[in-house]
């Protein structure tokens, strides 16, 4: 099993979610987050006050998938989250040792 954590532009979230559903990936955890990579932020002046926009809004999608779905999920995220501009986000991939469904204590891929 593999955990995929994708941090993407909020404006691309709907497209990514729909595309993931279309390839059969329904389960995901989504969070509203703020942050920056090399993109950094900027300062806005509004009505004489300065607003630090140094942490930009992003959406974080997390999912744990069986191995056979990992590649297609990554390709789908890349295809739909990419605009080619700085700030498109990142995908982090890591291995998962075990998954347990709390309700019936089923384990492994069957619990996903």
């Amino acid at each position, binding site marked *: 099993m593999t955990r995929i954590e994708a941090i993407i532009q*909020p*404006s691309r979230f709907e497209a990514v979610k729909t595309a993931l559903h279309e390839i059969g990936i329904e389960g995901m955890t989504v969070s*509203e*987050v703020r942050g920056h990579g090399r993109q950094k932020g900027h300062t*806005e*002046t509004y*009505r*004489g006050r300065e607003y630090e*926009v140094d942490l930009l*809004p992003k959406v974080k999608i997390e999912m744990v998938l069986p191995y056979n779905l990992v590649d297609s999920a990554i390709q789908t995220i890349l295809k739909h989250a990419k605009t080619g501009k700085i700030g498109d986000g990142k995908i982090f991939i890591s291995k998962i040792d075990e998954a347990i469904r709390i309700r019936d204590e089923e384990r492994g891929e069957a619990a996903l």
Partner: protein
Amino acid sequence: MTSLRDSCAAESARIEREFEAASDGRRAIQARAAQMDQIVVELTHTLLAPDITRVCLVAIGGYGRQALFPFSDIDLLFVCEDAATLKRYRDPLRNIAQVLWDLRLKLSPAYRLVSECEAFSRDNPEFAVSLLDQRYLAGDPRLFSRLHQEALPRLLARSRSDLLRDISHLTRQRHAKEGHTIFHLEPNLKNSPGGLRDYHTACWVAMLSHPDRIADWAAPENFWPQQRREEMRQAFDFLAAARCFLHYRQGRDDNGLSYELQAAAAGRGIGVEAGRPLEPADWMRIYFRHARAIYSLSTQLLDEALPVPVTLLSRFAGWRARRSHPETSVAGGRLVLNQPELVRDLSRLLSLFLSIAQNGLKLSREAEEQISRALPAAVESGARVPGLWEPLRQILLAPHAPSALRAMHSSGLLVRLFPEFAVIDSLVIRDFYHHYTVDAHSFIAIENIHRLRQAQHDWERPFSAIFSELEQPELLFLSLLFHDVGKGMPCDDHVAGGLQAVEGVFQRLGLEAEEADTVRFLIREHLQMSVNLLRRDIFDPETIRAFAEKVGSPERLKLLTLFTYADIRAVNPEALTPWKAESLFQFYVSTANYMSRSLDEERFHAAAQDQHIQRILSVLAKSATQPDTRPETQHDLTAFLEGLPRRYVLAHTPEEIAIHFQMVQQLKKSDVQLRLSKREHWYRLILVTTDRPFLFAGISGVLAAWGMNIWKAEAFGNAAGIVVDTFHFTDPHRTLELNPSELQRLEQNIAAVVSGKTPLEELMRGRAASQALRPPKISVATEVRFDDSSSSHSTLLEIVTQDRPGLLYHLSSAFAHTGCNIEVALIDTEGQRAVDAFYLTVQGRKLSLEHQQKLRDVLLAGA
């Protein structure tokens, strides 16, 4: 044990079958309580003794009321005479509990000495509440009699007030969690406002409100007002049937009425006469009717028994309500009508609701019914009521407007005045996000804006600041009230439906064209900011440009931002996260900055914008006072618009531009054209003339000399050197209001100064002395910022400083004295802060760095 389990299962199945056949919830819960009684009595006889003394078993809570829902907990109290008896019988009593557990019954046992039942524990008020519904089951009847006739009356005599306070606190806390509304799309039959918990709250409060009758243990329903008992009985029967249905369907104590279960219950006609199948939306309307009856009585009884803490302010509110409406009085925190016949007069009725909007008092149920009955005499449905906008405007602006609107809706007045609203009455729209019915969503959205007056969180404060700057907040409230009526109309696009419906509202209210246009704009574009936040990169300059273009003016941007804030927040309590709110504000800031910084750069070129020209020509041709269809008009209009900032064309309606154009045409007769008009609480001066030095300074100087307070101004110029300046000002000394003839003299003064016939200095004499008398309430540090990148041929100067009389005159004089020409100006005021932007040139070019420094020094010295 096996036979007991079998007989228990058989009886449970029989009760369920009977419910399946008749959908009689009341009968099912009584049958289940009777079934438990039999089991408990049998176990007591078997495991203790039929004639045991000093111990008794008591049903409490729902079980005590003989209202045991299929999967509800069974509250059982084991009462002992003294500690020794409790010690002696502890194991046999636990055995009874164990057997009930083994029967898979959800038992909540409690073990108490009879003396302990007299003590009120602040940590566990729920236990004292459950004792209010106590019922003898088995054991020593004399011990029960002591509990029933001595211990509990003593508890209530001592702690009745504490108990009432705790019930009130827990109820208000529960209602607050649910947004104080019954109109949830997926309500909880037990805990939502208007649910079964509220029904029982009405029972407990009624009982505790009659201390002299507590020892009688009469049915609490007998203490309710006679005329409310039947509707409460019907409401209970409906909810009991629906809750039994949910329990059997889910196989557990699950009281959430999800969409799926609503459809199933409606299809089975649960709680409906003769089990007639209904559409889910119609079935939910019945639910809301019953929930409204329960919510209304329970909150009314709570208000009467334990009014919200009386403060000096609320005493004053009650006194003020009585003074302005001697035909009303306040009883138990609710407005009561002393002379119900008077509300047949619509103006009195509206003024009553205005009083509610100002003071936050609620209508008593009886008053609500009296108003409902008086409505046919007060107003014909959908009739045009002359002057209706003014009282409605005042209601919308008052701090408790949502309470007044809800009361107007409950009594039927809102739908009577605006039949368009009827289609969203208790309307359930099924989606994953919305928690409230469409009408409730609209009221909550309005409430969200009013709450900005006292922002609770840091992320709310920027929106509070925007709210305080609005010119006509009433237009925002009116738009929120009607923005979703299209959802109840037979059309695919609810926005288009809403726009269609709202035209009738405009006609009935007699809204001015400009006001109606703003409301149309807000309803038409009310999803735009959400769509941009969700689907566009709000940091992309192209997104900002396209959005700013669609919005047109900073005022509309403010309105739309607040609309979006209120609308998202009214979807459900968690919908507007701080993350979304911050993103919304960032989007607002970027767009507002784009609007002011692109102002000078983006100019209107008539040849490429023919559709604007045609729209204005059409307005001119239809002008009621002076229809203009001359062939040369198009040429003249094109010449007027050429080179004006695009913002001018986007921010003004074709009707406004047509007026400016007519003023331009009059320049041949007189080279200064003025139009001065009174708005709600302020004045607007439009001046059209040819550009000249000291023009802006001259007008602001005259207004300052007259003691007027300019809070907003704009100056636009076209390629031919014609300027259109607009000043919005208030009259703090009420000079113009008390002396209407002075309006004409002010116009003459301005024309004389602008045309150079009267020196401004003459008028300005004497101002310095009066200014010195008024020190500012708060101090605002002056900030001066130059920006050479926003325009290719002007320098943008942004200045934030202390607002004060004559400020604009001093600033524009400083520009004139340092040789600067104002190309475009935008003046705004935020409380005590003046926030101004000027695009300046010196001899047609940007300001050099030296010139900027010189001007900065002059401005800072003057501050």
